[in-house]
């Protein structure tokens, strides 16, 4: 069993590595691929927090934004090398995410209340960024003038960043696998099935929820920091509910919560859909909304569970 999944992971790594070649190495395609991996990583984190421990965090954009702004501000004002600030940003995001989780779990907030609680936090974050415009550049955003990849290694900027993200994705997949296949994964499963029953069996629900929130938030913050240097520009509108959280949750639920391939598939399918819809220009969101409705009615458990059922359906034919 273990060997099979190693092969599976190597195949995934291989596929992602070859994607740039598959889609042609042009700058536009590479940018799309970069956004794909970035959102895949986001969906991965969300899978940990929502998929495996049912914590509906609507502040995911803020957690990314914290990593982004923190790393940019720290390195611009204090001159710390970017790689260390990425870690600091990730740790701060992780700390904040796990704190939110701890408060919610101790107060035994329901899914909907956790959503409103984290949503409030998300909006407050947005307002803080705008308000502290002297440090953050407010609404107009912050332009990053430094590049963290030294000119000598830099053959193709988009490509280099792409592989950085892919490596992080691969590491995330490995860590995820180890966690899910351990007793922690079992605890997660119990918690998603029935929290009260899990508590009665002796599972420290708060501990596991906080742990998953930390891991997910840490990743959010880490990617946020790197994204800032990749994009060379950040603004509060990039990290709000509509542009980030909504997309992440849709990708997660449609791909299949609580699975390894779910986030990968969900983000991939959505990137494709977005690219197809792009020529429609202004009515993109309209069609997206309609598509969302249709997809949810037919694939409500997610693509991965649906794909798993296909062989059985095939046999009945």
């Amino acid at each position: 069993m273990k060997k099979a999944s190693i092969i599976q992971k190597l195949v995934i790594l291989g596929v992602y590595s070859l994607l740039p070649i598959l889609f042609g190495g042009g700058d536009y395609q590479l940018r799309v691929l970069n956004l794909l991996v970035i959102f895949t990583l986001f969906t991965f984190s969300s899978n940990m927090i929502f998929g495996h421990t049912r914590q509906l965090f609507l502040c995911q954009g803020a957690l990314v934004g914290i990593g982004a702004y923190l790393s940019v501000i720290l390195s611009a004002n204090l001159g710390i090398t970017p790689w260390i600030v990425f870690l600091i940003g990730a740790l701060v995001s992780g700390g904040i995410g796990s704190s939110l989780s701890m408060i919610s779990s101790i107060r035994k907030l329901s899914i909907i209340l956790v959503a409103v609680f984290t949503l409030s936090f998300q909006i407050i974050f947005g307002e803080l960024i705008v308000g502290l415009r002297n440090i953050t550049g407010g609404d107009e955003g912050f332009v990053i003038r430094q590049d963290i990849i030294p000119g000598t290694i830099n053959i193709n900027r988009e490509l280099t960043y792409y592989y950085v993200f892919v490596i992080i994705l691969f590491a995330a997949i490995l860590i995820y696998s180890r966690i899910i296949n351990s007793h922690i994964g079992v605890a997660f499963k119990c918690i998603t099935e029935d929290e009260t029953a899990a508590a009665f069996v002796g599972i420290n629900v708060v501990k596991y929820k906080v742990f998953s929130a930390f891991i997910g938030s840490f990743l959010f913050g880490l990617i946020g920091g790197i994204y800032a240097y990749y994009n060379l520009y950040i603004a509060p509108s990039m990290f709000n509910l509509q542009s980030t959280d909504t997309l992440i949750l849709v990708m997660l639920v449609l791909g299949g919560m609580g699975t390894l391939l779910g986030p990968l598939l969900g983000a991939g399918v959505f990137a494709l859909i977005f690219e197809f819809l792009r020529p429609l220009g202004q009515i993109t969101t309209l069609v997206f909304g309609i598509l969302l409705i249709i997809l949810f009615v037919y694939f409500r458990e997610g693509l991965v569970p649906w794909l798993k059922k296909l062989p059985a359906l095939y046999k009945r034919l």
Partner: protein
Amino acid sequence: MIVEILLDGIAFGLMLSLLGVGVTLIFGLGEILNLAHGEFAVICAILAWVLMGAGAGTVLSIVLSLVIVGLIGVVIERFLLFPVYRAKGETRILMGIFVTLGLSLAVHSYLVNTLPTAQFSVRLPVTNIVVGGVILRPSSLATAAISVSVLMLLAFFLKKTYVGKAIRTVAQNETVAQLCGVNPANFRTLIFAIGAVMAGLAGILYGLIATVTPSVGFDLTIYALIVAIVGGVRNVYGTILSGIILGIVHSVSSFFFGTYISLVIFLVAVILIILLRPEGILGEKG
């Protein structure tokens, strides 16, 4: 001075209550968290703007747009939400969230693209009334008066009429409601339509104090959800109370700190209420 701020806050809060009660009712009966609720408010206001632009009088436009938004609610409920009702429990809640999310995105995009210049606002032709040294703004008075009347009408309807009681039975025990001859599907449609009309009315009232444009739908939805959930997601009285409280918080903090920080204070208040009373201000069911 304080009295005026409080009154403005209560009026604004009552408008929020109108929004929130719709969400509470729809969730209580069908377990669907309507993420498109704010869009109904916007549709109604924009419709009124269109009608007024076509030459119809203000009052007539408003009445017509309320009726039309109710009908739109019926159509959406019957055609869009019926697959959601087939699912049960947590699946239904998640499905409801995402299907209404898709709906709100579609409606928002459609309105912004087809009517980008639309803006609904009504200024009452009455000047400020002064009573005993207190300045009463006619917009706040009208908002408060209309909201209170509608909410009282709703309370009467739910408590005293057969149809209203039937609605409560569907929320409390759907199986036994059926055993009394009540068809839950019909009542879910009715309550969705009522919710849509109440949202539409809130949108109109919002036009008394500000301008409604096609893009404010999402913000209104968030207000509606916060008010409903803080008040206890199935408790109508709790929603009304939380609306009023949050309205006062909004008004007081706007006056002392300006609109930017007031939003932050508003959200901090929301967080505090959630953490202090997770069951909702008045508890879960009512």
